[in-house]
C-alpha cells in the first residue's frame, strides 16, 4: 500500500507528448541495459560492507528489502539480492516501472518464510535510513498556478524552501552529515539521511524527529492551520522563519502567487485571524480599494503590509493574535512533510535513478546547497536519454570518469562525489574501529 494512491485525477497535460512517447517498456529496457547505476546503488546500500575488511558483515546488503512494481501494477515485495550482479539481473529481467527500497531486516527478506519455521530468528527490521517525503500535492490550498500532480516553475520554489529548512535542521540541529535529496520524478522530493546513527534509530526516535518538524496541523475542518503558542518561536522555527520563510513569503511567493490579489484569495488568509473586528476592518479596506493600476503582485504586497501593521497595532488585544503574522507565513511556506513515511522503519521509498512512469523523468539527486538552480522540468527524460544514446553523443559507459558530458552523467557524478564517497569513507572508518574494539575485547578476555 503506497501513499501515492491519494493522488486523485491527473490533470490533463496540454501540449505534452503522449504518455507512451515519454515512457514505455522498450525505452526502459535500454535504460536498465545501459544507464542505470547498479554499482553505485550497491555500493551505497552496502555501507562499506564490501567483503574487503575482516570486520565486514558480508550479508548486510542481502538483508535489504527491495520491491518492484511491474507493468500492470503487479507488485513484488520482499525481494533481496546477495550481490550487485544478482540485483542487476533481477532488474534486467523484470524491467520494473518502479523500484522501492525498504529496510535492512534481521534475516534475508526473500527467505523470511523459511526462517519463520525455525522460530528463533524473528523477521524484523533492524536498520533503515531516516527518510522524508514531501509532495507538492499537499500544497494545493496555497498555490494558484497548478493543482494535483502538476508542477511548474511558479510552485516548485515551495519545494526548494522545504529542502533548505529541513536540510539546515538535519545538519545544524541533529548533526547529520550524510544526506541525499532526490527528485521524486514528478511532484516532490525525497530525503535519505544515511548517517550510522540515523539508520539505527528506533521507530519512537524516528517519530520524535518527524514530530519536531511538524508545525502544520491543519485539516479540512479548521481554517487556522498553524497554531504557534508561547511568547517566542523555538530556535529551530525562529531560524527557519528568519533565514528562509519570511523572505520567500514576501519575495518569490508574492511574485508568483499574489496571495492577496483577489477576494477569494485573501478571504482564506482573513480566516486565519482569530478576531472578527480585525477581519472586517481589513476586509472593508480591501473591498473598497478602487481598482488601481497596480499589478497583482503590487496589490498583494500592499495588502500584506496593511495586514501586518493592523496586527502589530492590535497585538496586545488577545494572546491568540501574538503570533498571527508568523502563523500566516508558516501556513504558506513551511514544509509539509508526509510524516507517516518517516515514522516507520519498514516504510518503502522509491529508489534514486528510477524513472517516473507518468513523466518519463529520472529521479536524480538534488544538491541541497544549490537547490535554487534545480529545475524539475529540465530533468532528463527517458526519451531524451534514448535519443542521446542513438545519436552516439553519449559514452555508454557511465562508470567512466569522463561521463560528465552526458545528460545523466552529471547526476551520477554528483551522487558519487558529494554523497557516496564521503559516506563510504566514514563507513570504512567505523568498520575498522569497531573491529579493533572487538579484537581488543577478545584479547582482554583471554588475558583474564
Amino acid at each position, binding site marked *: *500500500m503506497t501513499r501515492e494512491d491519494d493522488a486523485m485525477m491527473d490533470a490533463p497535460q496540454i501540449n505534452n507528448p503522449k504518455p507512451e512517447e515519454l515512457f514505455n517498456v522498450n525505452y526502459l529496457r535500454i535504460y536498465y541495459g545501459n544507464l542505470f547505476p547498479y554499482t553505485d546503488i550497491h555500493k551505497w546500500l552496502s555501507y562499506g560492507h564490501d567483503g574487503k575488511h575482516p570486520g565486514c558483515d558480508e550479508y548486510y546488503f542481502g538483508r535489504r528489502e527491495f520491491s518492484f512494481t511491474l507493468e500492470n501494477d503487479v507488485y513484488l515485495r520482499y525481494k533481496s539480492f546477495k550481490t550487485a550482479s544478482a540485483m542487476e539481473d533481477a532488474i534486467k529481467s523484470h524491467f520494473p516501472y518502479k523500484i522501492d527500497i525498504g529496510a535492512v531486516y534481521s534475516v534475508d527478506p526473500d527467505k523470511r518464510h523459511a526462517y519463520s519455521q525455525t522460530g528463533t530468528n524473528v523477521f524484523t527490521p533492524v536498520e533503515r535510513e531516516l527518510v522524508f517525503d514531501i509532495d507538492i500535492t499537499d500544497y494545493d490550498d496555497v498555490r494558484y498556478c497548478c493543482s494535483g500532480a502538476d508542477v511548474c516553475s511558479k510552485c516548485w520554489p515551495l519545494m526548494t524552501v522545504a529542502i533548505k529548512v529541513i536540510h539546515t535542521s538535519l545538519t545544524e540541529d*541533529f548533526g547529520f552529515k550524510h544526506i541525499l535529496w532526490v527528485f521524486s520524478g514528478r511532484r516532490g522530493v525525497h530525503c535519505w539521511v544515511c548517517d550510522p546513527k540515523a539508520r539505527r534509530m528506533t521507530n519512537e526516535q524516528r517519530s520524535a524527529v518527524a514530530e519536531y518538524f511538524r508545525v502544520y496541523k491543519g*485539516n479540512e475542518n*479548521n481554517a487556522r492551520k498553524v497554531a504557534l503558542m508561547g*511568547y*517566542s518561536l523555538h530556535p*529551530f522555527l525562529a531560524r527557519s522563519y528568519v533565514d528562509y520563510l519570511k523572505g520567500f513569503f514576501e519575495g518569490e511567493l508574492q511574485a508568483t502567487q499574489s496571495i492577496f490579489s483577489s477576494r477569494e484569495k485573501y478571504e482564506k488568509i482573513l480566516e486565519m485571524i482569530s478576531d472578527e473586528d480585525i477581519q472586517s476592518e481589513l476586509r472593508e479596506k480591501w473591498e473598497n480599494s478602487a481598482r488601481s493600476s497596480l499589478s497583482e503582485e503590487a496589490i498583494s504586497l500592499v495588502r500584506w503590509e496593511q495586514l501586518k501593521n493592523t496586527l502589530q497595532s492590535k497585538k496586545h488585544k488577545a494572546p491568540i493574535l501574538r503570533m498571527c503574522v508568523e502563523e500566516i507565513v508558516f501556513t504558506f511556506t513551511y514544509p509539509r512533510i508526509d510524516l507517516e513515511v518517516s515514522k516507520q522503519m519498514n516504510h518503502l521509498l522509491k529508489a534514486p535513478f528510477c524513472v517516473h512512469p507518468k513523466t518519463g523523468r529520472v529521479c536524480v539527486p538534488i544538491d541541497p546547497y544549490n537547490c535554487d538552480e534545480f529545475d524539475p522540468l529540465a530533468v532528463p527524460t527517458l526519451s531524451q536519454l534514448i535519443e542521446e544514446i542513438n545519436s552516439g553523443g553519449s559514452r555508454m559507459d557511465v562508470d567512466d570518469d569522463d561521463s560528465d558530458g552526458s545528460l545523466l552523467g552529471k547526476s551520477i557524478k554528483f551522487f558519487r562525489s558529494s554523497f557516496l564517497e564521503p559516506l563510504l569513507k566514514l563507513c570504512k572508518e567505523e568498520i575498522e574501529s569497531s573491529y579493533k574494539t572487538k579484537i581488543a575485547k577478545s584479547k582482554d578476555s583471554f588475558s583474564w
Partner: protein
Amino acid sequence: MEVIRSQKRTPTNDTVSNPKLPLYFTAPTMEVRLEEFELFAVHRLRVLKGVSDGLARGRNPKEMDETVDTLWRDHMRDPDASVMLNKDIISHFVLRLVYCRSDELKKWFLSMETALFRHRFRLENFQTQRGIVGEFGLPYKAVTGAELEGLKEKLGQVVRSLGQISPNVDAVYYKVPFEEVPDLVATRRVLIQKGYAFVAGSQLVSLVVTQFRAHLSKALILTNRKWTTTIQEREKDRLTPIVEALSTSYVGPDYSQSSEFAEITLKDIDQVAKTSFPLCMRHLFDKLRDDHHLKHGGRMQLGLFLKGVGLKLDDALAFWRAEFTKKVGSERFDKEYAYSIRHNYGKEGKRTDYTPYSCQKIISSAPGAGDHHGCPYRHFSEDNLRAALGRMGLSSRGMEDVMDKVRNKHYQLACTLTFEAVYGTSCDAGINHPNQYFEESQKILKSKTPSAPV
C-alpha cells in the same frame, strides 16, 4: 520471588537505596502468600486502569499527577512504608507475568507502567529525583561555565516558546544525545544542537522515563521467554490460572468482532449512519457520499469502524466501490483501493484481523491537508464543530455544555454529552470507542421500538 501458601511472610527486604520509588531492576527474594499474589495484582491493576482512563480523557500532565497521587493513595498506600514497598514490588512483578504473554498486552502494560512511573517521579522532590538519576547510572554531565553562557539566549527562547513570559532558564542543564529524550524532541521542548539536546533539570523526568521504559521493555521479553519455556507448565495448577484470568478481566473489548446488535447490510447503512454513528464517523460517511473519496486516514478510520459494526467484506467492497468509482473509475478502484479493504479484513498481506480505532487513537491522530479523519471535538474549529453538532440536532444549551468540555480538552466527555443529548438518556460508562457509541445507541433504539424486526 517465592510464592507460598503458608501464613507467614519473611520480608527479606534487602537494601533498597530509594525507599519510595523502586526501579524494579531485580525480582525480590521474598516469600509471598498466594492470596496476596492475586490481591496485590488486582490493586495495581486498578491504578493502571485509572491511569489509562485519565490519559484517554486527555488530562494534562499536572492533572495526571493528581490522578496518580489519588489512585496510589486509594489502592496501594499502607501506613507501614516497608509493607507498601513490598506490595509495590510484588504487584509489579506479578503483572509482568500477566502482561508479558502477547504483544498487545505488553504494549498496554508498558505504556501504563511508564506513565505511572513518570507521574510518581514528578511527585518526588528534586533531591530524590537526582538520587534516582544516579541509580540509573546515567553518565550525563551538567553544562557549565562558558558553554552554558553561550547557550543562554537560545535556551531562553525555548523557555519562552513553551509559554513562559520571562526567559529565565533553569540553573542546571544536561547535554544528552537527542535520541535519548524522544518525547522532548517531538514536542520541541529542548534546544538541539549538532545532535545534542540540552535538558533542563526540571525535565529530568524525560531522561529517566526513557531509561525506565527501555529497561521494562527488555525485561518483558525475557519474562515472556521464561513464562513460555518453564513457568506456564510448572505452575499450571497454581499460578497459571490466576495469571490468565487477571489479564482478561481488565482490558476492554476491542470490537474486532461485531456484537449481537451489530450486523448491518448495505441497504440500512444510510439509515444507521444517521441514527447511530458518532460524529467522527458520521462526518467521514457524509464526506465520502459528497466527495466520493476519502484519503488514507479517513478510509482506515471509517473502514475499520464499519467492519466493527458488522459490515461484511463483500458489502464493504460494494460500498466503497459504489462511491469511489464515481471519482476514479472502477478499474482504478480495483487496482489501488480494493486491496487495502481486503487487507483491513485480514485477507491480504500479514492477514491480521485489524481492530477498529479507539477514541484514544483517533484523538491522538494528526489529520493534515485534505484529511477528514480524527476526532471532531479535537480537530474541528469551533464554528465547524457547532455547525456539525447542530446537524446532530443538539439544542443550544446542550451545545454549550459540549463546547465547555471541548475547551477543557475533555474530548471524550464532549462526545459522551453529545450522546446523552441525542438519545435523551445518561451514559455513565462514558464513550471510549466509536463502536461502543454505536452499540449503546443501537441498544437504546432497539429498546424503544421492540416490535421492529431484527
